């Protein structure tokens, strides 16, 4: 009996909570993979699409600053639209003019967008953390060290549905194929009658939607303050996406779960008296190893 309890605390709890936390990284990673597939860039603003969406949702749920108090679902919809619009704006104002520049320039620019978004958020709500209401209250499992809330179940479900949907989108639809074509050979693609600009807008819009969904889902489960998505989730999400293969949507899912579990075990096994931040160290080593051994990631391939 005692053995079972230890097993629960040492292995099962980190596994489950790591997988749940990792689902979130995967959800954010989906948007990163999508933009890499479509534009061959790393999007550092992906996290802020989520923060902005979560803040909009929060503002309309609470009715802060003279805004009307709306039902939760409506507020979530506004948040999703807000995040998507922000992504579209980023595409039009930043990514499209830089399309023919070296990719690293665009990457620095997306970091600039993230920074701009964070400073605007700070000017609007200050640096103090807020408390966001979860979509569903309560716990599914609550035994000893193992806690699983309904919100976390929702996160895993949302990730599974969205990952499957976007993978099918690329496999089965003409539009998905067009996005891949643009990323590989923009000039030839436009010659066969596909609008590069429209495809680019579509890619960013979808990425914005995915980021917004991730932000709204994550906000109730963590410290919710300006820039929280960039601070807490973006870097593991990148690692997850690269680990799973930056071109593979199921890979982002898989990578997210693996990175989440690695983090939990890092926290558990590396003693903080020796060196703190074991989760970060293990994630860094994982990233380094995968990039040196198999740079295309677990499930990645060209295109």
């Amino acid at each position, binding site marked *: 009996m005692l053995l079972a309890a230890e097993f629960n605390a040492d292995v099962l709890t980190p596994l489950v909570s790591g997988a749940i936390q990792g689902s979130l990284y995967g959800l954010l990673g989906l948007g990163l993979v999508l933009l890499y597939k479509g534009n061959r*860039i*790393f999007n550092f603003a992906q996290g802020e699409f989520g923060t902005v969406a979560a803040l909009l949702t929060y503002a309309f749920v609470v009715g*802060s*600053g*003279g805004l009307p108090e709306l039902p939760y679902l409506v507020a979530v919809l506004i948040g999703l639209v807000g995040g998507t619009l922000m992504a579209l704006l980023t595409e039009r*104002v*930043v990514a499209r*003019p*830089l399309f023919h*520049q*070296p*990719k*690293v*320039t665009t*990457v*620095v*620019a997306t*970091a*600039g*967008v993230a*920074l*701009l978004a*964070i*400073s*605007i958020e*700070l*000017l*609007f709500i*200050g640096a103090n953390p807020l408390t966001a209401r979860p979509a569903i209250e309560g716990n599914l499992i609550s035994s000893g060290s193992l806690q699983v809330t309904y919100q976390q179940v929702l996160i895993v479900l949302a990730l599974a549905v969205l990952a499957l949907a976007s993978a099918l989108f690329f496999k089965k639809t003409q539009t998905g194929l067009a996005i891949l074509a643009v990323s590989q050979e923009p000039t030839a693609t436009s010659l066969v009658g596909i609008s590069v600009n429209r495809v680019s807008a579509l890619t960013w819009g979808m990425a914005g939607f995915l980021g917004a969904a991730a932000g709204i889902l994550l906000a109730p489960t963590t410290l919710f303050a300006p820039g929280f998505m960039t*601070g807490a989730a973006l*870097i593991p999400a*990148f*690692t997850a996406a*690269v680990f799973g293969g930056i071109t593979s949507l199921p890979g982002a899912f898989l990578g997210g779960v693996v990175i989440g579990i690695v983090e939990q075990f890092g926290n558990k096994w590396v003693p903080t*008296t020796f*060196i*703190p*931040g*074991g989760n*970060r*160290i293990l*994630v*860094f080593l994982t*990233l*380094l190893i995968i*990039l*040196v051994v198999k*740079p295309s990631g677990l499930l990645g391939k060209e295109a």
Partner: protein
Amino acid sequence: MTATAETAVAAPPAGHAKGGPSLAGWLVRGVLLLPLVYFFLSVIPGSADLTERGTEWVVFALVGISLNIIIGYTGQLSLGHQGFVGVGAFAAAYSLTVHQVPFALSIILAIVVGGLFAMLIGFAALRITGLYLSLITLVFGITLEQSLFQQPDLTNGGAGQPAYKPDALIEPSRYYFFCLAILVVIVFIDWRLTSTKAGRALFALRENERVAAAFGINVTAYKLLAFVMSGAIAGLAGALFAFKSEQVTGEDYDFFLALTFVLMVVVGGLNSRFGVLVGAFLFSRIGLDYAIERFHWIHELLVEGFLFVPGFGEERIQFAPRLIGAFLLLLTLLQFPGGIAQQLRPFTRWFAGGPFSFKHDVDGGPGTVEGSSVRA
């Protein structure tokens, strides 16, 4: 002292046109530079507040030069430079306070440790380039901040490792001059790096690694050299920063600082020493921050501009420099890829003895900024 400041200001090497200016021409240039010299050598050390901010500028400028070696010369993007700076700061503070090594040795240790950590990333850079390398540097910096920089022995149990200046430099203005002198030396070294064989090899590598290798350039050695030099200068900057604030805490070296460093180099102007110095000035606390605090009308203007925000308090003005910085970065990338340096190029070229012209390609040479030269 006048001469040293001039080197710092007119740093881009003069690709002399035929003849160059006459003695009188040089004299006019020197006289016109006097206000700048006066500002850096007299106004800044004259006020305690400005001295503190000025010292921070020098540290930022050093980091900028170090970062420019990686972004500008090798064409790779480092998003973890705060890690190298922090490593230097901790190395200096820890060796001085805990192990009682002399001041000079603690600074040398910071340089060595910074170089060694950068060498690790350099080894990764031999295999991995472009976006993937920037991701590695990013995760590297954050890992350092949250693991090594929180280590109880290093951080004095989390309270922060003290790093006291030696008695000779305890006067803040003296410490400012000390840092300024080091900056001049580093600017000189950086100038020699770009105008000798090593620099030309690095530029060749940036353009095309295989072609460079075919011309007999040792790819491994020069790439590692660039990273080690960059890390060593960053470590030096970290040590100077540690002795400036006399307290080193891990939280100071967060991802936001790394972004600020990239921001100042890109906005100032990649591949331009002068641009990096200007960018560092703008983004250290002597630039935007000081302007908002010092000039009341800017402050008022900002407060009034944000009054439409519900529940806006004046204390949130502290976030305004970030907003302006991010905006400047986007503006630079989208409209003025050469940064501030390119905008000021007609003037800097003239001060360096060249002709005065608004055309961009009057002097050519390796110092010329050609678009934003970051390559994937």
